[in-house]
């Protein structure tokens, strides 16, 4: 096993372990911390896959901005005392634990038997695959409309979040 594969396996192990802890830890605060670990693992995978720009964005936007939002809300609501898992094993939970491995099996079978991607559609790069310059060039040429639509989406989400979280004067 090459040293690169060893690194990939290690990161994958940490990613899966932290994902399991996100789901099964009772304290939401610890779930947030483990989700940050998971996001950093995904960011390291991006770096291994030569997606340098996405690595930076993942750390700044996801692990930075979005998770800080989660931390604020968890602390604001103070859910510590009511996070007791109900002892009743309901049908939905049993089906979920049975269906999860089934979903993994189905996805793995599909991925193992996929047809080899012999011909790709390699783009032409100005300064290399995954570079910030090529990312910006694509965003402002081929995907300009989608980029502008994303900005509208962010404005709508911002206004919606402010209105939803506003205290009603009665």
């Amino acid at each position, binding site marked *: 096993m090459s040293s690169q594969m060893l690194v990939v396996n290690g990161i994958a192990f940490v*990613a899966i372990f932290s994902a399991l802890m996100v789901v099964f830890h009772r304290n939401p605060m610890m779930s947030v911390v483990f989700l940050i670990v*998971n996001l950093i693992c*995904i960011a390291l995978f991006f770096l291994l896959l030569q997606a340098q720009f996405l690595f930076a964005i993942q750390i700044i936007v996801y692990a930075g901005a*979005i998770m800080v939002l989660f931390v604020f809300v968890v602390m604001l*609501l103070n*859910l510590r005392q009511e996070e007791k898992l109900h002892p009743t094993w309901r049908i939905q939970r049993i089906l979920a634990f049975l269906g999860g491995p089934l*979903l993994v099996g189905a*996805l793995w079978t599909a991925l193992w038997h996929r047809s080899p991607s012999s011909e790709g559609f*390699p783009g032409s790069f100005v300064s290399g695959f995954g570079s910030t310059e090529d990312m910006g060039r694509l965003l402002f040429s081929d995907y300009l409309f989608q980029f502008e639509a994303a900005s509208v*989406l962010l404005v709508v989400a911002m206004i919606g979040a402010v209105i939803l979280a506003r205290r009603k004067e009665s």
Partner: protein
Amino acid sequence: MMTSFLPLVAAVLFSIGAVGVLVRRNAIVILMCIELMLNAVNLTFASYSYELRSMTGHIFIFFVMTVAAAEAAVGLGIVIAVFRKRQSADVDDVNLMRW
């Protein structure tokens, strides 16, 4: 070999997120599990983008991150609004429109 291994990891992460959405009842943890699933899909996009040497997958990841940010902001706003009303973030307490 990395591009055949990483989608398998992403499949496991996606399934963990899906199970989490179904078994947890705290609305904030459910939102976090949705982030987990979105990240698993992002990992798949990145590995196939690397394999095909095409940056379209990176563009997709960029927009998925945008949507995830919007979704987290609105979702947490809804959680706060519900918490003000009911003093709880349990999804079972929000059952007015349940079938």
